[in-house]
């Protein structure tokens, strides 16, 4: 599925920066516009670009289907576990049980930061999985 040298090279140079930007959006979700959902969608967009330019088979070598679906389920389980921990510690389901820290720093805002990380992982892998499944069908 190698049709254009230009698309191939540009997309391969662009994808790491898109993934980095997705990680930035996720990790700064409590400070600036963005957050888990948006950052995860950007991660999935980077992987989609790789899929469209290199083909699904090559992309699956870097992002194996099994590992992606495992990390999605694990992230969802971790969100539930975090919620239940808040319940056990007497803050209510999905209540904040971590120290808040100084507002404005990157690891701050207690569990909002970790929830953002988990949701980003879950959304990114989830959307990529859907795209893998749909695009693989066409090949």
């Amino acid at each position, binding site marked *: 599925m190698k049709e254009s040298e230009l698309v191939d090279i540009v997309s391969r140079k662009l994808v790491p920066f898109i993934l980095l930007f997705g990680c930035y959006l996720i990790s700064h979700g*409590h400070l600036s516009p963005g*957050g888990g959902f948006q950052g995860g969608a950007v991660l999935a967009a980077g992987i989609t670009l790789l899929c469209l330019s290199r083909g699904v088979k090559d992309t699956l070598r870097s992002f194996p289907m099994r590992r992606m679906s495992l990390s*999605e389920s694990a992230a969802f389980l971790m969100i539930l576990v975090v*919620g239940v921990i808040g319940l056990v510690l007497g803050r209510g389901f999905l209540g904040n049980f971590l120290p808040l820290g100084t507002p404005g720093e990157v690891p*701050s*805002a207690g569990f909002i930061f970790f929830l953002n990380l988990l*949701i980003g992982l879950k959304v990114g892998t989830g959307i990529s999985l*859907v795209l893998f499944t749909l695009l693989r069908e066409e090949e």
Partner: protein
Amino acid sequence: MKRTLASLLLVLVLGAVLVFGVRQITPAPEALRNHFFRRGVEQTGSVNLVSSIYLGYRAFDTLGETVVLFLAVAGVMALQAGKQ
């Protein structure tokens, strides 16, 4: 022609009702907004107030959203597995 006129009349009437309704709306309640604005940062520690609402005050709602995405992924994968 008759049909067009009837549709136009219907659209105009509905539009008038909508405009009347919008003009009747009382100003948005301020108490909750002021509470989030004043106490949001100190209660959740998140400078981004949108984040503090959707992961702090309404984290349960976000959990529901992730369930929706999870079901979508599961559905797509199940459909593809059934095709093979």
